[in-house]
């Protein structure tokens, strides 16, 4: 793997003025464009950054002023849409939810931040990965309300306690931070992965749902919950603070104690 420091700075004309209080951050990005690269390569960009900047701002700086070919997904920029999952200094994060101040080197040392795509999904270009295998696993667990019989005219009644039972797993934004932090998923891509199980949990523990058995059968499969080794990477990675490992354990328990 090659590594270069970009000499492209300024190739797109004058750079915008550096704001007061900015420090220079060495942003080291794992690049890969199959159209031109035979293998991934590291490229370093020197980027002026304020402590309050999101890492996403730094990537935008590179794309907008230094190298327009740098490719990543992003949309809402405040941790809700789930587009910009990537490895920031080796851990899965949303680039829009990590601030530079939390990555600053101590004392007078220069700050360096490494950015790489999330692991375990094919890289399409730079930080942009193929999400299809992830979405297929999600769809496989029947992530929708299953009911039988006639619908009530008004809303279904659900107690506040029953609603609370699955609150945590309704927060999932399908960013893939959890699934692509899981060592089992890295080694065995056929494993459903934490995100799919989280979304199964969201319905299995919803008192209105009647599809729990179907989903538990699916998750009892060889590629299902039993693959989980409880490493807690997923819980650490979740940008929504979901207790992912706990949810997986609850699904395992539901399987053990059913009938």
């Amino acid at each position, binding site marked *: 793997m090659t590594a270069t420091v970009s000499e492209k700075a300024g190739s*797109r004309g004058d750079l915008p003025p550096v704001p007061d209080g900015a420090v220079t951050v060495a942003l080291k990005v794992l690049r890969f464009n199959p159209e031109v690269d035979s293998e991934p390569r590291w490229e370093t960009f020197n980027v002026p950054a304020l402590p309050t900047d999101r890492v996403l701002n730094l990537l935008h700086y590179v794309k907008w002023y230094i190298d327009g070919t740098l490719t990543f997904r992003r949309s809402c920029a405040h941790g809700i849409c*789930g587009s910009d999952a990537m490895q920031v200094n080796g851990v899965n994060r949303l680039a829009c939810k990590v601030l530079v101040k939390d990555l600053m080197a101590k004392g007078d040392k220069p700050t360096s931040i490494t950015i790489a795509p999330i692991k375990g999904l094919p890289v*399409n*270009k730079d930080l942009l990965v193929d999400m299809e295998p992830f979405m297929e696993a999600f769809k496989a667990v029947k992530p*929708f309300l299953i009911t039988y019989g006639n619908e009530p005219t008004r*809303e279904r009644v659900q107690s*506040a306690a029953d609603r609370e039972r699955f609150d945590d797993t309704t*927060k*999932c934004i399908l960013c893939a931070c959890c699934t692509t932090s899981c060592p089992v998923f890295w080694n065995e891509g056929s494993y459903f992965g934490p995100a799919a199980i989280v979304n199964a949990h969201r319905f299995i523990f919803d008192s209105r749902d009647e599809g729990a058995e179907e989903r538990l059968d699916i998750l009892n499969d060889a590629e299902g919950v039993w693959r989980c080794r409880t490493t807690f990477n997923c819980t650490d990675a979740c940008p929504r603070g979901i207790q992912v490992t706990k949810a997986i354990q609850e699904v395992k328990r539901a399987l053990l104690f059913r009938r």
Partner: protein
Amino acid sequence: MQFHKYDVVIVGAGGAGMRAAIESGSRARTAVLTKLYPTRSHTGAAQGGMCAALANVEEDNWEWHTFDTIKGGDYLVDQDAAEIMAKEAIDAVLDLEKMGLPFNRTPEGRIDQRRFGGHTRNHGEAAVRRACYAADRTGHMILQTLYQNCVKQGIEFFNEFYVLDICMTETDNGPVCTGAVAYELATGEIHVFQAKAVVFATGGFGKVFKTTSNAHTLTGDGMGIVFRKGLPLEDMEFYQFHPTGLAGLGILLTEGARGEGAILRNASGERFMERYAPTIKDLAPRDIVARSMALEVLEGRGAGPNKDYVLLDCTHLGAEVLETKLPDITEFARTYLAVDPVTEPVPVYPTAHYAMGGIPTNVHGEALRDNDNVVPGLYAAGECACVSVHGANRLGTNSLLDINVFGRRAGIAAAEYAQGREHVELPENPTKVVNDQLELLLSEHGKERVADIRTELQATMDANASVYRTEETLKQALHDVQALKDRYAHIQVQDKGKRFNTDLLEAVELGFLLELAEVLVVGAIERKESRGGHAREDYPNRDDTNYMRHSMFYKQGDELKGEIRLDYKPVTFTRYKPMERKY
């Protein structure tokens, strides 16, 4: 070039697009083309709730909701459409619940409801609890629930397909929409989708402003495409500024916070909304609250070292309410401003939020060609459309309602139109516009950076076409936007590749932003009155004699710098006479 044939093609997979797909998909062969993966859409960023007069927690009825919507919109609302929306709101919420949406519940297990700005009991007596909600992630839950039901139904999605043009065929009965042309981001390939009906649900264009709650991807693509076809846009001068954006960042903090009791204060701690809206105070509609905040700052009562924001005080709500009913905004304040709402007030300032205007439609979602005629086969719903249920100022929660009620209606209407009809032939060379556009953008024809033009556009729009406007500031904005259009002719796209060329995508998006910014400014200059979200310092009063009418904008010619022709459309009244708007 690849070719596809469907009955109905839906463009956009946010709330409106997916609600339409759920209806259309069960009736006709349907494809959804979307620039983003469906769950990335900005519906997911909506927080506070979706209003419907369920009367689960106190007396309420849809007529009060209709009245509030019309008064909130400063009487520019088409009253027949508002009545439909308020009436169908009840089923729209119940439908979502049946699809699985996890609403917060009352102690009796019914859908819980909270207060929201401008929603009142008995025509303005007091705030009413009308907003159905799921913590402060109601939009997220709507987006997820709709996507889950699309998965359940097996709806066909073309993800990361960026629609750049529609196909219009001239017939004896005038122009008919016969399909859409899309750019596949993964491969750079052009796809033609022939369809009997096309539904636009492409969202807003908040990225014309710097300080905005909108996503980077909200660049008004759908409105821009339609406008470039010579079809009208309606009421584009009305843009909503949400009062409570995180100061300096624009990230949204839900009005639901004030619905739960949070209070806006100026530097001296005064609850200033008592002066501007004595009856419902902090729960006045957004245009009024945003102007009040801007005035506090202009008159030197702003907080902070530069006195340039006000404070949203949630400290008296307690940690429990914040953590359970407002957890996301609590986290936003902690993450992005390092402020803990449990113990300190949060710095806030208005943020560009929502386009009241858009592609004019009737109540079936059919797009209009002029004041009286529809474009057969073309539909629009959600923020990109203008029915008009929001008039000059949208009430909080009514956007989530709009996408569900009119997304559903557009989906049904498009599918029923397609049923039993043959495909109309595509126009000759349907990809020409797109091919020419992309070829030009990828050619070496200048050195202008997309980011520079966009940054300057956003700066002039924030400075000159924001909460308060004057003839002078608006003319400055118009001058700036036109100069930026000149520079756009010389932009450079650095990435020349076929694969996931997001550099090219941003260049295309900037073209739409420039187009729509100019329409907004032209409309704002011509509307010499203050109404709802359009506040002219030089014309501070509403002028019903001259301006009780919708604006209709038509692009002349094919050039980016083509003239804009302005026409007018009457407002539909049913039972509500315009009154002075007091809260």
